[in-house]
């Protein structure tokens, strides 16, 4: 187990990168605490797999260093880093039995057979694959194959970090949640640092204690699932997380007031900075149909089970609202109310309002906010 630090990491797949657009990863500074469950979330092509391969040693970064417990491992090959990685498609050794598959990483390292047998038995029991130990691995179903791939990662007890690269892609939907909860359970049992890469927010939010959201080779926000949902640091996070995503509305600054389609909108707190493109961000969950407020016309109502999504048009801007009961019809004229403490201003994509109560305290953030503050620090660094 180890604490993993990435400092000043940049990577380009081109031999002579010139501008920032040539970099798949642009300046990453991150700390992964020992024993944490992390998710690396972002759309395809945002650099998350690149970052993963750099941590595992399959790629050497163009710039920057990787530290395991303070030790520089940037130049070390994967087998000397003591890491485990589970790939998108299950990797198993077809000709071996499940038992030999699980024992393979230990045998390669010259561990004695008695110890191997004990570890394999332990892992097999953890993964519920005891009864298949003597089956040829080629005959397993995809989800069991993926379990074996995970098992090969977990079988070494000295492993620094276990990394998962979208491991549930090829698994049937009804088995996904089973495997996902298995993973969560495994994390609680072995307490190894785990990094889970995915573009699926549900997977990320259910697995991880801390989610790292990436976009275009940059870390946009680090936070708990609740923080990402409640206070996105960037419009991208607001839009990417949540279903439907955050409403991002064009807004104008007018003598200290924030105006959207001619209506003044009350924000959670004081506005910081000036200039740039300003946008209001409010989640559909905090938009209600009210007696008064922003006038809108209902374009579509979709009932999604527990609640309904009302799509409205305010001028040319679409605003979504999530309501318990949709008692409005298409074409109806309604008023929208935004919950004040959940309505924020974004300047050039980055958050530009202080959290409620923040202006009263001289200290910018309390202890419980440290993670979020770290997220916003790195966010403002990346923005500059």
């Amino acid at each position, binding site marked *: 187990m180890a604490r993993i630090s990435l400092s000043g990491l940049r990577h380009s797949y081109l031999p002579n990168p010139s501008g920032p657009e040539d970099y798949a990863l642009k300046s990453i500074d991150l700390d992964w605490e020992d024993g944490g469950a992390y998710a690396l979330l972002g759309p395809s092509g945002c650099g998350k797999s690149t970052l993963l*391969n750099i941590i*595992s040693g*399959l790629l050497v970064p163009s710039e920057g260093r990787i530290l395991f417990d303070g030790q520089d491992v940037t130049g070390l*090959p*994967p*087998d000397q880093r003591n*890491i*485990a*990685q589970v*790939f*998108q*498609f299950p*990797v198993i*050794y*077809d*000709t*071996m039995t499940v038992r030999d598959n699980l024992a*393979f*990483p230990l045998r*390669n*390292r010259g561990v004695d057979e008695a110890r191997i047998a004990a570890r394999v038995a332990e892992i097999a029991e953890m993964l519920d694959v005891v009864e298949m130990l003597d089956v*040829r691995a080629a*005959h397993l179903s995809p989800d069991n194959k993926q379990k074996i*791939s995970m098992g*090969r*990662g977990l079988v070494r007890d000295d492993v620094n970090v276990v990394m998962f690269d979208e491991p549930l892609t090829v698994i049937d939907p009804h088995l996904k949640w089973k495997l996902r909860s298995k993973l969560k359970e495994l994390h609680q049992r072995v307490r190894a640092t785990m990094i889970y890469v995915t573009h699926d927010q549900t997977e990320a939010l259910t697995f991880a204690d801390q989610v790292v959201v990436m976009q275009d080779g940059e870390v946009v926000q680090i936070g708990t699932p609740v923080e990402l949902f409640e206070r996105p640091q960037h419009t991208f996070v607001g839009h990417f997380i949540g279903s439907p995503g955050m409403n991002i509305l064009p807004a104008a600054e007018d003598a200290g007031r924030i105006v959207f389609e001619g209506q003044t909108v009350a924000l959670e707190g004081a506005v910081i900075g000036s200039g740039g493109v300003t946008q209001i961000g409010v989640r559909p969950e905090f938009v209600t149909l009210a007696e008064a407020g922003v006038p809108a016309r209902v374009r579509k109502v979709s009932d999604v089970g527990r609640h309904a999504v009302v799509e409205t048009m305010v001028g040319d801007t679409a605003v979504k609202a999530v309501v318990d009961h949709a008692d409005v019809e298409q074409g109806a004229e309604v008023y929208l109310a935004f919950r004040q403490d959940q309505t924020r201003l974004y300047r050039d994509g980055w958050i530009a309002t202080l959290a409620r109560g923040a202006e009263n305290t001289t200290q910018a953030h309390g202890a419980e906010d440290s993670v979020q503050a770290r997220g916003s620090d790195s966010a403002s660094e990346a923005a500059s």
Partner: protein
Amino acid sequence: MKTENQRAWFFVLPVLLLVAFNALVPIMTVVNYSVQETFGNNVFFWQGLDWFEQILRSDRFHAALGRQFLFTFLILIIEVPLGIIIALSMPRKGVWVPVCLVLMALPMLIPWNVVGAMWNIFALPKIGMLGYFMNDVLGVNYDMTQDPLAAWITIIVMDVWHWTSLVVLLAYAGLVSIPDAYYQAAKIDGASPWKVFRYIQLPKMKTVLTIAILLRFMDSFNIYTEPFVLTGGGPGNSTTLLSIDLVKIALGQFDLGPAAAMSLIYFAITLLVSWLFYTLMTKDDAK
């Protein structure tokens, strides 16, 4: 209501006719010859299984069969490992891939009798480049027209030159189908290059290699043109492989009966070995 009629057979008929004229009629003609004796004029005498007995007891047949198995065995143990090694060392991506593939395919595109003629000229002492180099530059006594060992070496090298590419291309096809994740996982698991070959590359190449070995077995076991053009079966009978011997009996001595019996035995051996090999290789997959 389910309607049943036999109309579908009409659609099968063209294929049946084609197969009949292609395979059944020629084979039955051979079967016909193999149990009769003829002295020409289309007069035939019933001979029963005498020809088969005669062939199976003949030393000449045993010797040719032995040479045939030796030849096939030698080219297989050279071409298969060599093909795998070449395939492993070929680039997986980049501009050199098509270059390598075309270079590899070239020998296979040359007509068989041309290959024989090429190597004949190439290897002849005094005239050929190889013959001249061996005798006059290296001072090794190399003459495939006089020395059976030299003749054998020449036909083996010729076949390796002509057909290793087939193994290379098939093995290469198997190799490029392995996803990168396998190699990455092996790196992380700390597997040595040998273990990567043994547990990842070889299993993934197994199917194509089975086909490669099967094709090389059948082709080399039935080989005729190249050694016939190169050595004509000599010196003496030293490179008279089964098919060369068969043609000698059938067309040289015009012993149609024994030749027919011999071709049927020959066919049965090829079929039996291929079947055995294929069954053994695919047995594990069905489990």
